[in-house]
């Protein structure tokens, strides 16, 4: 399991994030670490930097973590979260420029080193 990148799904909606994570697990089971989060600090639609940081750490793999996001705020908050990680981890995380569901499934099945992926 430590040989593959971890996947983090960040959506404005927790339901979308969970559903996407379910689809990833259907493809790769527990071979790949997957974490997901969605919702603002009050639980409404939005994203939340501190839970994104937690999700990255939950899905952590020595090969790095790929984050899949839905809309702008999820991307901005994910980039902020990456910058707030401990320095040694920052360079091993990539926020992917890809559609969230297709990107997450592709990332999980490809499992390449995240740092080599297009940003």
């Amino acid at each position, binding site marked *: 399991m430590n040989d593959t990148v971890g996947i983090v799904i960040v959506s404005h909606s927790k339901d979308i994030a969970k559903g996407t994570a379910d689809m990833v697990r259907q493809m790769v089971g527990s071979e790949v670490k997957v974490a997901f989060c969605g919702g*603002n*600090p*009050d639980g409404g639609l*939005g*994203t939340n930097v*501190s839970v994104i940081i937690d999700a990255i750490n939950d899905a952590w793999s020595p090969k790095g973590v790929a984050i899949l996001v839905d809309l702008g705020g999820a991307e*901005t*908050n994910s*980039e902020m979260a990456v910058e*707030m990680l401990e320095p040694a981890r920052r360079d091993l995380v990539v926020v992917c420029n890809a559609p969230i569901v297709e990107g997450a499934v592709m990332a999980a099945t490809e499992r390449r080193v995240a740092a080599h992926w297009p940003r």
Partner: protein
Amino acid sequence: MSLQPETFKTLVRVAAEQVIASAPELTSLDQAIGDGDHGTNMKRGFEAVLSKLDAISSQPFDEALKTIGKTLVMTVGGASGPLYGSFFLAAGEALSHSRQLPDDLAEVFGSGVSAVSARGRSHAGEKTMLDVLVPVLETLKAGVGQPDLIERIRTTAADAVERTAPMQATKGRASFLGPRSVGHIDPGARSSCVLVQAVCASLEGRR
């Protein structure tokens, strides 16, 4: 004359209160061209700032700005969190390099504006908060030391907000609307104006 801690505390309090009071207006502007959460997001962020006001105002100014930035990043819950958060984090960082308020205000403010631009990969003219922050920075650069600076900044910010109405959004959620974003004031520009004007009002009350 250097900025006094009491003045700074009042300034942060007034700015936060003004943002909170403007939440319904910001939400209504955002409902027109965005996802309608700008008011509640900003309110949540600045309520968190207010709740830490005593701690913030007991810190040196550079650390205080960074605390405000980090608080916004962690509590706003939308893109405006990292955008405003980056502004205050970068302004605090600039101030910590042996700069003084108010003498180096333009430089410190400019660092904040650059951080917003980098975080949003955006520049003025795209119907965003930068369409207020950039003109305000220009006025600051041109006017530090002049007696009517506060009035000029106030006017600059108010005019700049109005100028976002005819723009077509190319960044943020409003960009999905394409030409239909024209004719509406940008909510982020408006919240930047509220903040700038609150600071002006607070400083003016002190003179």
